[in-house]
């Protein structure tokens, strides 16, 4: 199954690429907006700063390409900051609009636990095509969405937050499946094979 991985400079593209290949993807890594616009299955990676990642998407017009592709029925998986980019807005360093594909806002963790969250955390999935059951995944994040309509998985970090979302064919996971051993590869395999 062909998968188009967006070659963002604000991401750990090599790691995700390796995991997607391991999960059976026929992988195309590109930053060409035209190619992305006509793709059927897209992965949007991201680590670090939401603002930097969104700025790059806008500058390259990949933001429009992703919106166009999903409006034509392409499936999309956002990973970590890539997941956050799917939302309406993030409050990291001011307020920045995201792609607006998923209703909701991304905010900094509040509460007494140390930020960033670094490490494994148990994720509870409701029924969805991406992953079944409850399993630990690897997180590195200071920001997250919470209580959004499209939530398909929750985790707790001094309060519940959104670990994964789905709206029709658009998916997002706040954790790093590429660092989550067997569970992460299983999730990626489900995305690669899902139609």
């Amino acid at each position, binding site marked *: 199954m062909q998968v188009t991985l967006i070659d963002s400079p604000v991401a750990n593209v*090599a*790691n995700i690429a*390796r*995991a997607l290949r*391991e999960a059976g993807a026929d992988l195309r890594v590109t930053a060409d907006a035209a190619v992305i616009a006509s793709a059927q299955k897209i992965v949007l990676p991201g680590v*670090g700063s939401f603002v930097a990642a969104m700025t790059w998407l806008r500058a390259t017009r990949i933001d429009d390409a992703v919106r166009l592709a999903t409006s034509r029925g392409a499936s999309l998986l956002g990973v970590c900051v890539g997941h956050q980019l799917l939302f309406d807005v993030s409050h990291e360093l001011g307020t920045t609009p995201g792609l607006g594909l998923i209703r909701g806002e991304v905010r900094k963790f509040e*509460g*007494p*636990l*140390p930020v*960033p969250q*670094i*490490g*494994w*955390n*148990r994720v509870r999935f409701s029924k969805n095509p991406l992953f079944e059951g409850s399993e*630990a995944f*690897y997180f*590195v994040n200071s920001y997250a969405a919470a209580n959004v309509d499209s939530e398909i998985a929750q*985790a*707790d*970090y*001094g*309060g519940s937050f959104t670990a994964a979302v789905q709206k029709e064919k658009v998916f997002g996971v706040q954790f790093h499946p*590429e*660092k*989550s*051993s*067997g569970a*992460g*590869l299983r999730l990626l395999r489900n995305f690669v094979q899902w139609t």
Partner: protein
Amino acid sequence: MDVIPSIDVLQGNAVRLTGGQFALLTKYGPPEEVLDGLELERGSRLHVVDLEASRSGRPVETEIVRRLARRDLRLQVGGGIRSLRDARAWLDCGAERIVVGTAAAESPDFLQQLVDTFGVDRIIPAVDVRDGEVRVEGWQRGASESITTILRRLQALDIREILATDIRSDGALRGPSFALYRQLRAMTPLRVIASGGVASVHDIVSLSRHANVSGCVIGKALLDKRITLAEANARVATPNAIPERVIPCLDVRDGRVVKGTNFGNLRDSGDPIECAIRYEKEGADELVLLDVSATDEGRRTALETVRRVAESIFIPLTVGGGVRSVSDFRALLRAGADRVAINTAAIANPQLIADCAREFGAQAVVLSCDVKGRDAIVRSGKESTGIDAVDWCKRAEALGAGEILLTSVDRDGTNAGFDLELLRAVSGSVKIGVIASGGAGRLEDFRDAIETGGARAVLAASLFHERRLAIGDLKAFLAREGIPVR
């Protein structure tokens, strides 16, 4: 598990005794002022001990209890309750429950009367233990019967919850007596309110993982602001959400895994890529790779090893050894490390921690702290720095380190157990996670490093390399002991 703040009162003040001795007393001021500083939620439980009453055998600070009860708190009051009249005095003041010590151990008839008169839900028998013996009369003397007999009698009365204190750990902040609670669980179905020894939020989390522990009394650590109730309650709400990690460590030299004792006597332990793949398959949560080569040639080989290991696993990889600059740090990240550990260079130049944290994020920066005695040491264990390890770890956290890899050089490769005192000292002083390293031998060592030591991850090398312990078996053991694992 309920987190129950505790204040001892004496002559109108909130105080603490150490080891139950009136001579070793700390004063905290009027109880109301003390409570105002704790930010108790409405309706929470509060444990109050009238110390004068426990010494003299009659209620003294009834006015204080009356005033505290008006604050919408659920009070449990103890101190020398030896008659129905004493008990009624406290309950009339607004206490929800009374804590009965000496009487619970020594006079079964009296306890029966209390239960018959006030109901079993208003009585909490206190069992104070020292070296397996129940102590009475302000801990001054041993009870005439064994702990087993005393517990059996409480069960016969239909008592459901007791307060258990390990006298040796009370007020000493050396950690709760997890062994006592484990022992009680084997002896009795009674629920236990744990009391004594809590020094950090890790202690509270560890207690909440004991199935028979229904409450945890915290005094000194709360009053000294080592713990906040908000944090304790947040952690206790989901004590098992975040799995604790098991991390195999590959010490790599010239492309091979090596392992020694006390940082010396290196012997070959296999191919790093084969080890890495095997460990991920066995359930390792993360891998640490330390370059222990001494030459520049060796370092270039190590970078290649890092690349090949990173490409063969799908778990986080932390790499350390010989990192001297931001560009060394970057080279390791580019080679596939998720996090990089800094050691010697950070001691000479602490700013390196801050520079790397700013450039790559706190999550990428691990302080590797090697400790001999209580001193941080450098150059693979060869040189002492005269810097206190705990101070250094606190400083590294302030500079932006995301986690601490804490290695006891004295214990390294000895299989004699982790240095729990060192672990407690560091984990109780920083908010960031501590990885326990050096000395793993028995299964219980790993449990103790997490439960007592407050470590968020446990690391071992030779045990895993030599197949004396399988990661899967270790994780199954930890799970049986109530510690969440992936």
